[in-house]
């Protein structure tokens, strides 16, 4: 068997399509609800796996091209697997002045990924955000729901080590 096909099937096997069905059940027959349906799916899987999108397309009778168009239009939808921990580095004015670029740089060095990427072990995803709204703590990052403020590059490693 072709290796690519094999790989594809493994991915499909990993995605619980029955779970997808139950997630989107409330929206069946209502094509205008495709965004909430995709949100539900993403909340469950952390991103939008292709087999799940195909299942949504089939069940909601919305062309896959349309779902893909919607999913790639809105920044909130992710097409690739994301880490267990999402690091959001604040790029707001206050943080910028207080050295957030250096923080981001150190995180990138430590994890070996660039902003927007995910580590191979799916532990971290690194993102930059406009402003977290905690300027008093500048420079600040968030890891999932935890804020970490008044950072310096040297503190980065210890903080990351706390998230396994």
């Amino acid at each position: 068997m072709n290796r690519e096909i094999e790989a594809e099937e493994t991915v499909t096997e990993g995605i619980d399509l029955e779970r997808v069905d139950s997630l989107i059940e409330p929206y069946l027959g209502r094509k205008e609800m495709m965004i909430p349906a995709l949100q539900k799916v993403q909340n469950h899987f952390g991103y939008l796996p292709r087999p799940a999108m195909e299942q949504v397309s089939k069940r909601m009778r919305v062309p896959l091209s349309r779902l893909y168009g919607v999913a790639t239009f809105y920044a909130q939808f992710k097409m690739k697997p994301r880490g267990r921990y999402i690091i959001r580095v604040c790029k707001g004015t206050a943080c910028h002045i207080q050295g957030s670029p250096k923080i981001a740089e150190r995180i990138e060095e430590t994890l070996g990924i660039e902003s927007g990427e995910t580590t191979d072990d799916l532990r971290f995803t690194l993102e930059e955000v406009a402003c977290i709204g905690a300027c008093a703590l500048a420079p600040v990052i968030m890891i999932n729901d935890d804020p970490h403020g008044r950072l310096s590059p040297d503190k980065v490693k210890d903080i990351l080590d706390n998230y396994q």
Partner: protein
Amino acid sequence: MSAIKLTIDGTEVEVAPGTTILEAARRLGRDIPTFCYDSELPPNGACRICLVEVENARTLVASCVAPAGSGMVIHTESERVIRARREVLTLLVANHPLDCITCEKTGECKLQDYCYRYGVADSNYGGEVKKLDYDDTNAFFLRDMNKCILCGICVGKCQDVIGAGAIDFARRGFTSNVAPPFEDPIEDSTCIFCGLCMDSCPVGALIPKYSFSKGRPWQVEKTRSVCPYCSVGCNIYLHVKDNEVIGVTPVEENPVNRGHLCARGKFGWDYLQSGDRLTSPLVKSNGVFIEVSWEEALGFIADSIEEIMERYGSDAIMGLCSPKTTNEESYLFQKLIRFLGTNNVDSYTRHCHAPAVDGMMKAFGSAAMTNSIEELASTGAVFVIAADPYVSHPIISYRVREAVRKGAKLIVADPDPIGLTDIAHHHLTLRDGSAVALVNGIANAIIEEGLQDQLFIDRRTEGYDAFRAAVAEYTPRYTAEVTGISEEDLRSAARAYAGAGSAAIISTVGMDYSAGNGGLVLALANLALLTGNLGKESAGLYLPYGENNLQGASDMGALPAVLTGYQPVKEKSVRVKFARAWGTDISDQEGLSAADVFEGGAGDKIKAMLILDENPVTCVGGEDEETACYLAGLDFLVVQDIFMTETAALADVVLPAAAFAEQQGTYTNTERRVQLTRPAVKPPGDAFPGWAIIAELAGWLGFDWAYDGAGDVFDEMASLTPQYAGMSYERLAQGSLQWPCPTGEHPGTAYLYEGRFSRGLGLFSVVEQEKLKVSEAAGTKKDALVHHACQCQSDSMNKRSVVRNFYRTVGR
């Protein structure tokens, strides 16, 4: 509401409320440029090239979306407007490859035309440009999204008009592009290669592969013709350069396809130029074909036929006509067979459609499709059962989509999803083989809720009481048990169908060869009679045929029991009429049918057979080997075709015929519409138009026929055929006509049975659901009744076309 008066470029115009400025201006002949506007799609005002100046308005307005207002004074080409349009063009050009020298679209590119018109040669906006890979993975067309200007017309057409949903806008901002899901190659998407995106692209982003480097638009001659594939009969332009067809585009101004096509019409004509075409008459000598002159071939045929007639009599001869030949050819062919003194003439493929023909004949007295394709677009409800028009007759599915967009209710009954389920209001996933029970159950629910059209039943039908008694058993509960459809779904589908002012039924069950489908046709006829959905616009029973001229071949009398226009050979007055016109006696014995000969045991009565463009060796219904053995065992076999088919290979003489694009003639589509096709290229080698070959052969057989062109043949046929009596090539050149068209002034008939059925009253029939096989009841699929392929359509054209492999795999 009163009309709106406004002034456009100094001229006053009056329009209805709701008219856009663009529409109003076009009415005055003002040429406002547009990119994203398409009359078939809702306007979206995205491209900004149609901006116009409205006096006292704060800004320029997009004329495609702005409604005309009372007292408006509008300038469509003012300084300010031109400046704005230049800016729009400059922005587009900044991110567009200016390779017009080699671009296939040069000469018919809107971007190029408007830049020329407004003197935009380049852009002073530097910055990033798109660098996308192009997609040329499929056999049909190239997608170069670097040239795309994001007008969105292809997206609208693909999503809403066609329903393929293969492409949409992906991403956003600078990286926006039109893409299949996950930006995969288009071939891996749900694209059906109808070509509409290509035909409506204003720039060179979507380019058909076949015409690459073959000719500029101004070097191409366009000849109007009719697609030779299915029975819809789409109007096409054949693009010709140097006696070669290099492209096809749809004709917009016609009521059949209105600018739409499917893959077959758009790409399926490459066989015309195949190196395998027959180019010379062939005679078999010691088992090997040798090329001979026309004189030798026809002389040999005439001698052989005369010899067999002397030995065995006229009834040892049989003619097998094809549902793909022109009316003229079919007419002359049956005339020739009858001149030989026999009525042994039939059209083989017709018998695939026997369930439809027999059922409609019984219920209404005529087998023709009751209403027109175009009427579907304005119907109130559509019931699709045992059909997938998206695959078999795509134009019909486009019209159903249009009806649904306008508010029609769509009921689909099929165990599996079909090409219309995505927009269906009711998808009844019945058990295989239980369709008759479902239809009877719907009839029961309609009667129970008093939704039948009692006035219609009383005045226009007979047999109602027996029918009502029979369907009384099919209560919703019982029907639910048999079909697996819940009572509630059944009732709501029944209400949707019966509640619409006009409702249409679509089924290709007639195309299904499997036995027992006659019952479903009758059950559907009952349903239409019950609700008065006959004899009026946008209603009726759509059982479209498979082949392009099956209707015509039947109309032309290429049938064993009737002459043209279904005039029975048994009737003396008919025989006298034809004898007088033709100058020969007509046999009063009904001839043998193809079914009699191939399956009914009458095969040994036939010693010589003439076959036109038909390939019974591979057609459905007969064992290949058995049919081949039979044909090989005949004393004499003549086959006329455009290719050396499996059947032709068995012949004693093979005659090379012209294909549809190489001759003049008419085809009658499944809605009884007679359409003119014109020669666009010369036939290869010594090939000739079929009607001319038959006329020539008649001369060799000693018959004194003289025709001055195909029009002459048509006139003779029309003079003998009441349904065609008012038609002529002159009239058809102005536009197609639907029979019955009895006089030269008659406009033709869009739908049948207004006021009266062919048999007088419409006949209700009692049809019972046959017992389901155990396997069916258990829900196994694909083995029996509900079935949508068009097996019959894969004859010598498809087999040799690029669409061949594609059509085996299409479907969602």
